[in-house]
């Protein structure tokens, strides 16, 4: 029916002062015509009233008809504000320019940064590439709603990048890159010999560079030169390379018990809860006393703390498990097999690279004290070569500079 007073103030209202004439008649006429009046104050022949701006023409004609004089006191609402604005176009223009400028500036990329690289040159190169791809300060932001194309573009342009991630956050664009780690370059080998690492019988020598100094069938000792990098009596030195396959013997002493005591959990357990106050332990729960033949206890203690201070009161839970002892015994045959298996594992795990087992020989198998004792000889074929600095024959002086 009637708008609240705050709303009429927004829509446009007028507060007037009426004097002289037939005020009563105007009020009644207003009421009949359904014109809402607000804050009506009548004092004798004078009246103050507020009306909606849209009702004013009718009120004015009524007042004229009844000879009432009108004086305006207050004006409210946006129609008056609009009029005021119309009188000050420069202010309105300034406001409009401000809004437009704000819209333009907020739709631009302001800053492009590169993270993930320390190298300043690479950073500059990435900056250049992004600029060419279209991401630069001043570029319209709307273009980077979806940055997948830009990322793939950058990856194509910079082959030394592994991954490019672009995040546009407001007016800031950040290009995060991960560079490819270059593969480690092969070690530059200096002049060297290949010497024997173990005592062995040489079977085959494959010298790809250098001079082979041993022959198949020859017994070599550790440190003996197998392939020499010194050519022409040491005048030319090269990094020797190649393989020397030789037969190596390993002697292993092994003992395997025939009877084993093993214990296993049966799955039965009882739980006991304690409240530990300092050194005192009060059992709160778990009073069962099971009749286990053997048992093992596992304890778990809470770590209640206030900040860094560990509380003196802690909860402790102990689980008592039933244990079943288990006696296992092996046959001699099984023990022998196991011994051989253990020896093979041991030999294969020793240093010297890949090995081929040529044969195994069991010596002195004895059973004593419930154990099987054996000595096993294992023959393997393996590469016994190891790199070493060039070893010149006695009496030869190292002289690379002038040449003898």
């Amino acid at each position, binding site marked *: *029916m*009637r708008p609240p007073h705050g709303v009429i103030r927004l829509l446009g209202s007028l507060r007037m002062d009426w004097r002289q004439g037939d005020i*009563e008649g105007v*009020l*009644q006429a*207003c*009421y*009949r015509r*359904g014109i*809402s*009046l*607000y*804050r*009506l*104050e*009548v*004092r*004798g022949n004078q*009246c103050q009233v507020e009306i909606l701006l849209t009702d004013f023409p009718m009120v004015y004609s009524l007042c004229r008809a009844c000879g009432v004089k009108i004086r305006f006191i207050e004006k409210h609402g946006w129609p008056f504000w609009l009029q005021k604005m119309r009188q000050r176009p420069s202010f309105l223009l300034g406001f409009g320019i401000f809004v437009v400028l704000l819209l333009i500036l907020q739709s631009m990329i302001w800053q492009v940064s590169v993270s993930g690289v320390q190298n300043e040159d690479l950073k500059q190169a990435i900056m250049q590439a992004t600029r060419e791809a279209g991401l630069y300060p001043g570029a319209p932001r709307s273009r980077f709603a979806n940055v997948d194309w830009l990322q793939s573009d950058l990856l194509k342009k910079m082959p030394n990048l592994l991954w490019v991630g672009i995040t546009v956050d407001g007016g800031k664009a950040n290009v995060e890159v991960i560079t490819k780690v270059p593969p480690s370059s092969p070690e530059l080998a200096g002049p060297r010999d290949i010497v024997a690492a173990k005592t062995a019988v040489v079977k085959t020598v494959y010298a790809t560079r250098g001079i082979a100094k041993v022959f198949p069938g020859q017994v070599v000792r550790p440190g003996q030169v197998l392939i020499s990098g010194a050519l022409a009596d040491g005048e030319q030195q090269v990094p020797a390379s190649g393989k020397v396959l030789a037969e190596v013997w390993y002697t292993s002493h092994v003992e395997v018990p025939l009877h084993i005591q093993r214990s296993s959990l049966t799955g039965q357990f009882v739980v006991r809860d304690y409240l530990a106050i300092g050194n005192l332990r009060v059992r709160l729960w778990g009073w069962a006393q099971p009749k286990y033949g053997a048992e093992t206890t596992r304890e778990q203690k809470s770590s209640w703390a206030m900040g860094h201070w560990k509380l003196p009161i802690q909860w402790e839970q102990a689980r008592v498990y039933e244990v079943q002892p288990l006696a296992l015994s092996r046959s001699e045959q099984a023990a022998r097999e196991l011994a051989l298996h253990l020896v093979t594992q041991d030999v294969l795990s020793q240093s010297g690279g890949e090995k081929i087992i040529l044969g195994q020989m069991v010596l002195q198998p004895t059973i004593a004290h419930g154990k099987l004792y054996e000595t096993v000889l294992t023959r393997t074929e393996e590469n016994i070569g190891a790199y070493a600095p060039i070893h010149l024959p006695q009496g030869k002086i190292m002289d690379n500079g002038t040449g003898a």
Partner: protein
Amino acid sequence: MRRWKRRLQQAATDWLSLPPDTMSGVSRLTCLGGEQVIVENVVGLLHVSDARVEVDLQNSRLTLLGRDFVVTLVSVGEVHVRGLVQQITYHAKGDVS
């Protein structure tokens, strides 16, 4: 026709046990703490001054007497008055005040 409508309204109000002012144009006067008066279902505005406000109701005339009256709203069928009310008087139509 008018009488029929009135009777129908009356019957509906009785049947739904609504207060009579909701349907059938009976005027309602609300007085809050002797300082604010709201009169609804007003037919006409007869007199307004700072000491006396007189409104026309359907079957009677209501006179408010007091001090410092400000009519905060005059709208269709509704008059809100604020001020110190001293006396509220109803006069049946035709009586001479």
